[in-house]
């Protein structure tokens, strides 16, 4: 690997994400927050001190029953703390009216928690409505948010939740939580009920949205991979919401604070480094790109001259549609415009893990990476391997 590659991979995913972006969130500070339920000898949450910096996405992980969800729900007082103080920014919100407080804190639960008898637009407009925004402003905001979460307002505004797929419901759930532009977003295992492919997409979207908005996000999950992929920081909890480790994903994976964390993070921590590195962080190979409809013989000649085995074929708008070998290509007179449904494609923001998954499922032994303006490059298994060693070296060094 060249010197430039080392520099590019030098900035880890979270470092890159936490710099150069606008922050609209506020910090959250917990002081001795405790929850005891009557009739139980041990506290569900025992004197937790925690500081969450403004604009960061902090992941709460831990086994079920460790109190992480209880702790999350104390942040918006769905669960009233028995003891301790909670600050949003400099405000002590422990004594505030809970309904007023919750309108300033977005809340997303599994499957979005959408109200089935209300349209998508009504669902999203609920909090602005409670804050007495006027109709025109709410309607404009609904469209803006649907755009943000990648749903066409024209199509989805008037739909009911049951007319949406699980992933779409989840997007609407995120839009609803963001409706009144709250500085803080609480997410309670939001992507637990969707299939792996959709989950990966929703995670990518959340990273993008967070990059645009810079909210303070607290995200509860039991999936360490999800925590590593999304989090700027990870809090690992043990029973009683004891904070075992609070650190960057890189550090949690490389230097678990206790055996407990190592066990929880599980085997294959090195492989989990794959979820720390984005496709855009590694050096991609530049493939030979040809448009559908070009003269095949000419393309083959250029490819042979460049020593390429494969050619990435794009449609008129520059989007990759297939990735044939030279042998396949030379059989046609013009470059065919057939779309390969199984073409492995990932985005620049996807993780190496996503890319590796796509590669293993494809016959070409690599993936096509798309950026904003079409094909950004291709990536092969060797690139991934090199990146793993790179990341490992950094953490240990």
């Amino acid at each position, binding site marked *: 690997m060249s010197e430039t590659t080392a520099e590019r991979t030098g900035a880890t995913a979270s470092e890159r994400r936490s710099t150069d972006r606008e922050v609209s969130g506020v910090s959250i500070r917990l002081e001795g927050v405790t929850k005891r339920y009557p009739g139980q000898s041990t506290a569900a949450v025992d004197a937790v001190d925690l500081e969450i910096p403004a604009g960061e996405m902090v992941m709460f992980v831990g086994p079920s029953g460790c109190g992480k969800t209880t702790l999350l729900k104390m942040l*918006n007082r*769905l669960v009233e703390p028995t003891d301790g103080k909670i600050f949003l920014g400099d405000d002590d919100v422990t004594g505030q009216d809970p*309904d*007023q*407080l*919750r*309108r300033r804190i*977005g*809340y997303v*639960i*599994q*499957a979005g*928690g*959408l*109200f*089935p*008898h*209300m*349209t998508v637009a009504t669902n999203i407009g*609920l*909090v602005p409505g*409670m804050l007495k925004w006027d109709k025109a402003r709410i309607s404009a905001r609904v469209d803006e948010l649907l755009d943000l979460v990648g749903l066409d307002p024209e199509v989805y505004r008037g739909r*009911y*939740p*049951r007319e949406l797929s699980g992933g779409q419901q989840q997007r609407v759930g995120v839009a*609803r*939580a963001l409706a009144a532009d709250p500085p803080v977003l*609480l997410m309670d295992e939001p992507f637990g009920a969707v299939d792996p492919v959709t989950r990966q997409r929703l995670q990518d979207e959340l990273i993008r949205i967070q990059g645009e908005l810079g909210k303070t996000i607290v995200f509860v999950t039991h999936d360490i991979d999800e925590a590593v992929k999304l989090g700027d920081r990870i809090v690992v909890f043990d029973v009683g919401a004891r904070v075992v480790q609070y650190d960057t994903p890189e550090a949690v994976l490389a230097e678990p604070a206790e055996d407990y964390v190592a066990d929880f993070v599980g085997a294959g921590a090195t492989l989990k480094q794959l979820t720390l590195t984005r496709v855009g962080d590694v050096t991609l190979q530049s493939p030979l790109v040809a448009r559908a409809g070009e003269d095949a013989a000419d393309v083959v000649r250029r490819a042979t001259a460049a020593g390429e085995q494969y050619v990435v074929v794009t449609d008129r708008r520059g989007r990759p549609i297939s990735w044939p070998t030279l042998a396949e290509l030379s059989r046609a007179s013009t470059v065919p415009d057939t779309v390969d449904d199984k073409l492995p494609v990932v985005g620049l923001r996807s993780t190496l893990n996503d890319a590796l998954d796509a590669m293993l499922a494809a016959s070409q032994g690599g993936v096509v990476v798309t950026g904003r303006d079409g094909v950004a490059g291709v990536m092969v298994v060797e690139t991934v391997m090199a990146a793993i060693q790179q990341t490992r070296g950094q953490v240990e060094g």
Partner: protein
Amino acid sequence: MWEYVLDRRGQIAYQALQHLSLVAQCVLLGSVLAVALAALVYRNPKASAAANAVSAVGLTIPSFALLGILLAPFGFGITPAVIAVTFYAALPVLRNAVVGLAGVDRSLVESARGIGMSRVATLVRIELPLAWPVVLAGIRVSTQMVMGIAAVAAYVLGPGLGSFIFSGLSRLGGANALNATLVGTIAIVLLALVLDVVLVLVGRLTTSRGIRV
């Protein structure tokens, strides 16, 4: 019999209207009371069980007996009729409203609270609309049942088609006695069918497209 109907069409229509009005108003009143009561008890398992017991036991009280008992404090007339009919109208609605409200997904309630809806707003905007189809099913059952009970109310000189039935039964064997009884009974059945269709339409119009089955 046709002649009988033609001769008395004015009276039949008047009594049918009275019957309809008694039933409609009592069902409305009973439903409001039942839903209010259900909203008070549905979050408490013991109170819900008590409400269900009341509604089950209440339905076993013979309407004739209840009307008789009500005669003592209220005398003859419209008051005991309204009380008895409202009582029976409320019971099926109470049961369904408790079941319907308790059946609303708790995560939706938590979601509503989590985005800052007050307890009352959550009940009015989320729980009741979601429980509405079940409540309405209770109202339909109650309407059908109360149609018959309202006829018995004629015993305490309440309004409605029951007067035909009772006057017929008391003169059984005499001229037109059977006709009077049949007219009262058939008119009640027809009214019940019409009202049921109306309630189905109300259901279509008041149930959100998002939860309609």
